């Protein structure tokens, strides 16, 4: 009799979990189908794979949005379904959709001639693992999803099989990743030892009960180790060394994907880990778990991240490297929101990542199109772009101004939210906001350099014939306009985004 009720409970849990797990299931099915279609070796397999991928991403997006109000755990407390997870999942799925739709084999000179099936399959695998990472509720699940995301990213970076740069970039990425996630795993094992559980909610309850002094020290060491893993995924200093190399060596569509999706997933799990595992919700604020003061540590990392990223970007001439360092700096700004440890801080993280997605993907699309038509990633080849392609120049200006944080573009709104959240915390946080503001000024310098190169600088006179005018395909023009228009959302329809970010603030803090 007892066994019968137990197995009924088991079946109910599985049925319930399977229902909430539909977005991930859709991606898994599409992943298998893409591999099968690719094995057919038919000539049309590339487009079929792309359509399948887009369909899967769109349906997963719709399913996740439909399920956004749930706040519970599934699969025996392994994963959560909560509004915050829904926001980040939608962000990740949307970014993956945009990358697959606008950066394709059709307009990338680098990907031409390479197999399409593996590319889409790996994209789907990376997106699937990002979803799992975003909703992980157990240390084992967290580590598994993190490694799955890393492994698919390593292979994507090494996508040019015989290319020296691509493979070198991937090896550096891999060794860095393996070392930092290894350290993270050591930290996670200490967490398990200190609290006797691998579930985030139970860790928080065990820590709230208090630790002895010796154990408090161990806890601090464990937090430092765990931050190494998160720092690697979000490319925060001092775990950022792989980032410029991987971004430069990888094909541009992969770079665009890597600059947004793993970063967003990394910040989602960082927020979840620190807000659920190491703090207690208290009204609209969070209270720190006793015996570990992690905001000080993250504050230091955040200040270092933006400074190092911006200073290193000053001297770059390769556009992919420049955007890599700029993305490191942006990770520093996003971290400000986590440090604030408040509802406004969490909202800052969400809004900033949303803004970052729109401006960064747009900038990478311009870089990709310039490379397609002129075969160069070098900023020194950009002069005269305004004559050769007014549309590329105009849209790039929008993205660059948005990255700079100029109102009324979306990048400004992102900065407004995170800086506001930090200043709100009181005088002891003011220096931190000042560091952020100084960095924004520093960043304006190298972003302005891109504008100057495109608009003001003359084309070099030494060339006999002036470079021909760039003729963009209709499809590319449409995407450029769309991204540029999206950067103007604050003017048109900021309301819905803000309302969603507000309603998505609830984190599942139970078991």
């Amino acid at each position, binding site marked *: 009799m007892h066994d019968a009720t137990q197995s009924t409970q088991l079946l109910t849990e599985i049925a319930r979990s399977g229902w909430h797990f539909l977005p991930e299931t859709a991606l898994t099915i599409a992943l298998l189908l893409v591999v099968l279609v690719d094995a057919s070796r038919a000539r049309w397999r590339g487009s079929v794979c792309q359509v399948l991928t887009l369909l899967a991403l769109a349906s997963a997006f719709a399913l996740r949005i439909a399920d956004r109000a749930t706040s519970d755990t599934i699969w025996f407390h392994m994963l959560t379904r909560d509004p915050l997870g829904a926001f980040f999942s939608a962000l990740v799925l949307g970014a993956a959709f945009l990358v697959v739709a606008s950066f394709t084999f059709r307009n990338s000179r680098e990907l031409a001639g390479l197999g399409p099936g593996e590319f889409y399959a790996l994209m789907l695998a990376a997106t699937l693992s990002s979803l799992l990472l975003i909703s992980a509720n157990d240390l084992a699940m967290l580590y598994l999803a993190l490694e799955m995301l890393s492994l698919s990213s390593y292979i994507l970076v090494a996508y040019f099989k015989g290319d020296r740069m691509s493979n070198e970039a991937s090896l550096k990425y891999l060794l860095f990743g393996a070392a930092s996630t290894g350290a993270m795993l050591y930290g996670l094992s200490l967490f398990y030892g200190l609290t*006797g559980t691998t579930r985030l909610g139970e860790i928080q309850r065990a820590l709230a009960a208090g630790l002895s002094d010796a154990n408090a020290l161990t806890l601090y060491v464990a937090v430092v180790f765990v931050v190494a893993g998160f720092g690697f995924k979000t490319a925060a200093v001092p775990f950022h060394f792989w980032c410029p190399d991987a971004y430069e060596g990888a094909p541009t569509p992969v770079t665009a994907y890597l600059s947004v999706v793993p970063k967003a997933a990394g910040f989602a799990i960082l927020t979840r880990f620190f807000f659920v595992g190491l703090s207690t919700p208290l009204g609209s604020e969070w209270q720190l778990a006793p015996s570990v003061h992690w905001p000080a540590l993250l504050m230091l990392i955040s200040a270092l991240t933006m400074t190092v990223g911006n200073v290193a970007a000053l001297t770059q001439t390769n556009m992919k490297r420049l955007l890599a360092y700029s993305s490191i700096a942006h990770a520093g700004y996003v971290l400000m929101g986590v440090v604030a440890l408040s509802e406004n801080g969490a909202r800052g993280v969400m809004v900033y990542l949303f803004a970052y997605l729109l401006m960064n993907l747009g900038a990478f699309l311009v870089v990709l199109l310039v490379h397609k038509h002129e075969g160069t990633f070098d900023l020194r080849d950009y002069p005269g772009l305004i004559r050769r392609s007014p549309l590329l120049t105009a849209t790039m200006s929008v993205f660059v101004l948005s990255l700079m944080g100029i109102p009324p573009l979306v990048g400004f709104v992102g900065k407004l939210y995170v800086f506001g959240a930090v200043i709100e915390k009181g005088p002891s946080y003011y220096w931190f906001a000042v560091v952020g503001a100084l960095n924004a000024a520093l960043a304006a310098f190298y972003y302005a350099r891109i504008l100057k190169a495109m608009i003001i600088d003359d084309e070099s006179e030494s060339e006999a014939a002036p470079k021909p005018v760039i003729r963009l395909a209709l499809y590319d023009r449409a995407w450029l306009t769309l991204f540029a228009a999206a950067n103007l959302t604050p003017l048109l329809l900021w309301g819905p985004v803000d309302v969603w970010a507000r309603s998505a603030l609830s984190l599942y803090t139970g078991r």
Partner: protein
Amino acid sequence: MIGLSHYLILSAALFCLGLLGLLTRRNAVHVLMSIELILNSANVNLVAFSRYGSGGLAGQLFAVFVIVIAAAEVAVALAIVLTLYRIKRTPNLDQASTLRG
């Protein structure tokens, strides 16, 4: 008697050895072996905490997953090291320096 602290000392030693190898070795395969040491130090921790602590079987299950992940990671890593070896004819990491700046 062998107790929890012995296992923790062993795992800390393994972790430090792995870290040392990671920082000093120049051969890509040696670096990968050092990473294996780091992962296994965490495994020793997990299993020891599971045996002596209050955590139940969760730690041992975690360790099994880690072993699988480590195997997958090495498979990908060796594939990339091999491709790079075909291009450059050396497993030495110092010579993987085309990308800088």
